[in-house]
């Protein structure tokens, strides 16, 4: 796939992954105080629970990817991306999309 001028997958990963951690850190830092301010209400909120479950699944998906397909990245760094890696990517997009939608739904189930 021609992205970033045909850079090897490992190079793109090395460039981008540290910043995904920064993003996750910022969201946790801002999300935790928001949660703390109404923890009791949120605990029972079905959308909030689904969001946390999806976050967990997204984390597990990333962990599995790094423990399996990405271990052998040297073999597919430049050539065609293997189906397994594409599957991990597709699942990742779906899960993070779910996190966003579930996050928006929290307000719908919010009792005030």
């Amino acid at each position, binding site marked *: 796939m021609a992205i*970033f*001028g045909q*850079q090897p997958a490992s*190079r793109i990963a090395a*460039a981008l992954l540290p*910043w995904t951690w920064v993003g996750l850190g910022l969201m946790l830092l801002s999300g935790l105080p928001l949660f703390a301010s109404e923890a009791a209400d949120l605990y029972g909120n079905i959308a909030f629970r689904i969001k946390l479950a999806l976050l967990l699944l997204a984390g597990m998906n990333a962990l599995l990817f790094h423990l399996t397909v990405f271990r052998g990245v040297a073999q597919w760094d430049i050539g065609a991306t293997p189906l397994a890696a594409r599957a991990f990517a597709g699942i990742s997009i779906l899960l993070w999309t779910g996190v*966003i*939608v579930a996050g928006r739904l929290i307000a719908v189930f919010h009792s005030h």
Partner: protein
Amino acid sequence: MMFMPAVSYLPPSLALLSSDASAPSSLIASTLEWIQHTRVGTTIRESNWAIMGYESVHLLGMALLGGAATLLAIAAARRRGLGGLGVSVLARSLIPLAGLGLLIMVISGSLMAWSMPYRYYPNPAFRLKMLLLVLAVTVSCGLWQAVHKQQSDTIQRSWALLAFALWLGVGLSGRWIGFF
């Protein structure tokens, strides 16, 4: 997300009262009235789920646009770029992605605004957002031009940083709409 106040679904008569002191001219007023009563506007406004659905789609578009703009800004702000990848390399892949995000946001955003014209038209945060949006799109086109004409690295980085600042302004003023 959790603090997002519920969007106020005022009936049209009350919504009119909540607009600011500058009463819209009769042409604008009749246009707003027409928009409000179009079938699309009415359907979205009266649905329990439409606004929430469009807001979710709006957020997904934001992930694409905001993510691309942020990565370009990080690459522009650092001497080594993003892990050795500079603005010119990243922009060729990221700007089309940002464009897709913008398209998604413009469609979902237009539908939401169309359903409640009295809520959006007089809202100062909405007006500021639209102004910043025009500037952000213009500057982003400037970045696209600079990349394709292979202008100097400094010029490309400046465009990328200015674009990021403007997109940030669009996002913040958009968040602010709900407080009016």
